[in-house]
């Protein structure tokens, strides 16, 4: 077989495998994306047959006058920082503990992972019930003021509730990423360091953590993009309330499109949001890739 024909065959195989997916992605993601570029330049209520082209008006309004978009973006940022830090720290701690061998390891791993499999919508409704009904029953029983606070009805507490539920839901998934990362670190390195006299604290921060960087990159990338895109939990748990205090950017866009009937403007908003997410995740991946080390 000549090399030329072999290369053609490889190309053929490559195309057969890639083409179906490529076509699907084109149809379901790329073409709608390009269409939305057009809609973002229009004034359209989402169903009318009259679409008015208004140029960059939408973007002008978004940058110059839209305080709601700004407020919801700041909420998204605050929410993201809180959940990213909390999820990753807790997930890492759990992973370190659960890679030690003791009896309950596998049961505990499963227990922490279960919430991740349950639909976010259901989790939102369950916790809504817990915060409202279960807490008031607990208050009648224990009389602890903690249970009488309005966890979903006060601006600050609602923020904590949303962050808490998100962390509780997703921590198991990130724990799994860290567990696989920890298990791939060769034991000899830690043993050697122990013989050289490094204590547990030093071994974790100077050996385990640097070697865990690939997992950290992945986990952070996923948690950043997931928390910036948060929607379901807020939609079911607080509906962006009380007032608009827990309205995330995605919910703001949803409201703009389906409540205010401003499809064109909502498209413009979502495009800007895509650009922002893209920038943030790009910087993050670049930064952490440069920190990865080989064993």
């Amino acid at each position, binding site marked *: 077989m000549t090399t030329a024909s072999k290369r053609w065959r490889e190309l053929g*195989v490559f195309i057969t495998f890639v083409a179906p997916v490529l076509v699907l992605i084109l149809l379901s993601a790329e073409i709608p994306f390009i269409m939305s570029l057009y809609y973002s330049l229009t004034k359209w*209520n989402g169903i009318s047959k009259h679409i008015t082209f208004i140029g960059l008006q939408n973007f002008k309004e978004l940058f110059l006058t839209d305080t709601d978009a700004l407020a919801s973006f700041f909420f998204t940022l605050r929410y993201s920082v809180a959940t990213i830090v909390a999820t990753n720290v807790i997930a890492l701690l759990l992973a370190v503990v659960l890679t030690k061998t003791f009896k309950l390891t596998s049961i505990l791993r499963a227990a922490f992972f279960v919430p991740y499999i349950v639909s976010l919508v259901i989790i939102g409704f369950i916790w809504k019930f817990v915060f409202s009904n279960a807490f008031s029953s607990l208050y009648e029983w224990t009389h602890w003021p903690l249970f009488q606070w309005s966890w979903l009805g006060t601006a600050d507490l609602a923020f904590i509730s949303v962050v808490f539920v998100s962390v509780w839901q997703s921590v198991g998934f990130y724990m799994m990423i860290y567990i696989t990362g920890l298990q791939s670190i060769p034991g000899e390195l830690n043993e050697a360091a122990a013989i050289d006299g490094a204590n547990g604290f030093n071994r974790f921060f100077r050996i385990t953590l640097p070697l865990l960087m690939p997992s950290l990159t992945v986990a952070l990338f996923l948690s950043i993009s997931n928390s910036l895109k948060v929607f379901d939990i807020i939609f079911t748990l607080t509906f962006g309330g009380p007032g608009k205090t827990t309205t995330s950017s995605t919910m703001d866009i949803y409201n703009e499109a389906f409540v205010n009937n401003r499809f064109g403007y909502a498209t413009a908003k979502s495009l800007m949001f895509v650009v922002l997410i893209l920038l943030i995740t790009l910087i993050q991946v670049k930064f952490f890739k440069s920190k990865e080390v080989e064993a």
Partner: protein
Amino acid sequence: MKRHVLGATTAGLVALSLITAGCGSSDSGKTDTANNAGAASSAPQESASAKPVTLELFQYSPEMTDAMHQMAEQYHKENPNVTINVTINQDNYYPLLKTKINAGEVPDIFMTGAYNDNKTYQDYSYDLTNEPFMANIADSAKTGVTLDGKVLGYPLILQSYSFIYNKKLFADAGIKELPKTFSELEAAAKQLQAKGITPFTNGYKEWWVLEQTITPILASAGGDYAQTYADINAGKKKLSDIKELVNLFPLIDLTLKYSSGKPLETDFNTSVSDFAQGKAAILHQGSWAEDAIRKINPTIDIGFLPHPVGEDGSKAGLMVDSNIVYRVNKDSKNLKETLKFFNWLTTSEYGKNFVPKVVKQISTIKDAPFPDSQLAKDTSEYLKNGKTYPWVKGYYPDGYEQQGGQILQQYVGGVTDKDKTVAQLDSTWAKLAKAAQ
């Protein structure tokens, strides 16, 4: 190796052909609807044949589920060739409806609100002005579905809301006269509290409950509503130029002061069940809540308070309007059958009894009987002898109902004060009015 490649190729081809088939069918779907649009104008001339027809009916209001299915069955019995396929959705109704419309699958009949929705859905609503059966609909119900002189919808139900009160608890507290002003309401609340009864349960987790607090206050301003709101929309006036608007705050403060619990965590169901169990004496809700209340407490004795709107007792009234509207898809290929169905719904014996007897709410049909429910009877009393107001929220720009409700939630939660709330109510209105033009 060769076989694998072949396998992969076939798999790829199958996938590809599936995709192209998908495109093909969706394309042909589009041309189908396009053809229908052309054919629709000629459709009414064709005779209604006996060939099987399925009418798609899409609506919200899940409390009507059983009634709708019963009605569809009845119609199928009388017209064996017609099947009505009822789909009911609550949480995501409007996004779903819009998706259906954009996909070219406009349901034959779909539900929307009145007033502003006339404009939003005008491209898809059949003009019912000259349909003979519309003569049987009460004129007061037609205002909300008329746009530029054209009747673009079929108002189904007359609804009313105000403060609902528990007659027994009011008697226990010795309240002889129904409160009509804020100070009388406060006095009544004090009397209830003195008896150990919680006066209010506030379902302020629902933004629409707070919207229903703004609307009566604004309606009490009276005058030519259409003109007032046209001026506000045009930017000639601000919402806060309606001097009654500030009456909103003493009313909300009052309901908060004389209640227990967590107002922003109390949703419709919780407030209804508190009220039905007698845990609170007053509930700000409408005629649609009676069914839910009676499911918990079948024997409760309830009625409407005239909605206090300030210190002038003569202005207290009941909010009555028809905001549940069916629209006929004007491009429907079953247009003729659809109109026949609405004729049946308006003029047949079953149709006239459907809303009052099956849905148990007030019908908009002129000669329909009144439903056997206390709030409906109260409503008919108010319509005859009392003061009623239309739901002026119909003049709000798109999206203002929810936005306004959420702005007030922030006031209830103490995030914003009175002045800031008024400023937000004004600026949000200006923004949405501008967007709607």
